[in-house]
């Protein structure tokens, strides 16, 4: 806190606590609510049990299946977005070519265009080219909405990379491929991994675009939850939401362990 500020420090702390509370509380409500022993979605829960978790696994194969669909879709689209993001990021940062600015804007445009518009547009486009309600269409849609996140993080780490590092490695006898493998990739790894994680989460939780691209045979978990909420809000919905949360959380934890928490955010720019 800046010294000499006119706000008393307790007020400042209360404000911060309030902000944190408003971020965490709704999520906590859903999480805790999923352990209810009662028959309706209420807070505080009526008793604690794993009753609805069992119900979901036993009697809601559609939700379980949707969970796996979402997981696979998120992994595939994040991997594709990261690969494309790496290539695009290199082009945007390392080469000065006509159309670089418009291209940057184009790559980031899915962030600026409302996702409902993207959903409708994708549906029309995919139907036209004969991919309407096809799994490949769903994947394509998710790659498009996750790409900006992958590119942004990869570009940020590439910009922070001194080009002289690559030149130095070249002069020391490393070919282009060796330079990429031994110098560039290790140094932008934090950006690449963060890009992948963010892309995964964006795909995993997306409703708006998926809504237009899913088929009766292939529904993602968020879309399914959305359907439940509209028709019959049972505590099973909160369990499904909790599963989404757990999956994201576990993935972040695993990747952070793999890459190292300090490496993930720290050493990329040193």
């Amino acid at each position: 806190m800046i010294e000499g500020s006119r706000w008393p420090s307790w007020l400042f702390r209360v404000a911060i606590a309030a902000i944190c509370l408003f971020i965490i509380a709704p999520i906590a409500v859903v999480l805790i609510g999923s352990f209810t022993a009662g028959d309706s979605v209420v807070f505080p829960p009526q008793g604690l049990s794993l009753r609805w978790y069992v119900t979901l696994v036993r009697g809601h194969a559609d939700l379980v299946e949707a969970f796996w669909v979402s997981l696979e879709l998120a992994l595939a689209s994040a991997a594709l977005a990261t690969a494309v993001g790496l290539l695009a990021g290199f082009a945007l940062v390392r080469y000065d070519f006509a159309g670089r600015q418009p291209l940057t804007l184009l790559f980031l445009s899915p962030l600026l265009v409302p996702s409902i518009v993207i959903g409708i547009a994708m549906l029309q486009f995919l139907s036209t080219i004969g991919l309407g309600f096809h799994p490949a269409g769903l994947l394509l849609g998710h790659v498009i909405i996750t790409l900006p996140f992958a590119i942004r993080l990869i570009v940020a780490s590439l910009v922070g990379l001194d080009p002289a590092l690559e030149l130095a490695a070249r002069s020391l006898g490393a070919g282009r491929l060796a330079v990429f493998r031994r110098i560039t990739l290790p140094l932008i790894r934090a950006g690449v991994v963060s890009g992948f994680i963010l892309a995964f989460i964006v795909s995993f939780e997306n409703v708006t675009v998926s809504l237009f691209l899913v088929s009766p045979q292939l529904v993602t978990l968020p879309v399914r939850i959305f359907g439940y909420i509209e028709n019959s809000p049972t505590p099973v919905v909160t369990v499904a939401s909790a599963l989404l949360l757990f999956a994201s959380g576990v993935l972040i934890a695993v990747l952070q362990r793999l890459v190292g928490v300090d490496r993930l955010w720290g050493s990329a720019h040193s």
Partner: protein
Amino acid sequence: MSAITLDGLIKRYGATVAVDGLSLEVEKGEFLTLLGPSGCGKTTILQLIAGFLVPDAGQVFINGEPMAGVPPERRNIGIVFQSYALFPHMTVFENVAFGLTMRKAGREVTRHAVAEALELVRLSGLEQRFPKQLSGGQQQRVAIARAVAIRPRVLLFDEPLSNLDAKLRRQMRTELREIQRRVGITTVFVTHDQEEALTLSDRVAVMSQGRLQQVATPQEVYRRPATRFVADFLGETNALVGVVRDVDDDHLTMVVGDALLRAPAAPGLRPGARVALLVRPEHVAVRVTPTRGLNSLSGHLSQAVFQGARTAYVVRAGDAELISTADSRAGAGLGSDGVFAEWDAADSIVFALDE
């Protein structure tokens, strides 16, 4: 055979010509400095030698071998960058060993070469540190060790001292020269710092706008600058503009205001030519009475600027202003009016104006 031959190099960036038909030979073991203001093309030349850039015309030869089509990784050139460009994710050992690893040198050979290189730069014992755990001067040494460890045919330095503070820079300068003498590798050093160029080099190549102005020993570029640009760029100079009156065998007489000055003759100058006479401040003396046989301008002392060991005296003589530097103990007691700024004709040099 020269270690490096640059033959008619031209490099353009769009409409700007960075290197404009430059030819230069660097002898084996020589320490040559490319000196010039920023944007004069000196770094471009370094990158052309290294192979990071391809010339639009002309050729680079290393040990007589044409380098066209040879990628940087196969040129065997050691480079020290301004930012040092140490690999942050590798230890000092791994950094210095990188070039040997790329050459698939054996473990023992590598260890030996790294130890030797680190000893050369007096960094033995820091092998397991990471670059960010080192001071700027130490990082600089690692960069030198890494470049030397591959036993390159040529060493290139791109303004390597400009990120160090003044005191460390002087220290590293001496050390750098020592290291280069010991390893004896042909070196091209790029800088905009004239002091660096004068103290380090066997020869200095002064550049301006993509062209060579003069290539000569430090003494020669300082004492006998070939062009007005070189004279202005290296050290301080006083410039007096006047008209040539007479030319004899090896001297000329010129008129500046109402004074007559003598100077060594320069080729192509005839009576009536407009010229600039240049003389270094350290060659100008300020006296209360004129001396026979010296060029003498009468004026008054307008300022004395104490600079520590030396003091700069500013003499106004009509429209002209002359600076004289002298040992600080010498000039005390000069009155502010009626002084003479004097110098030996041999210490001055004349260039034609309106070329």
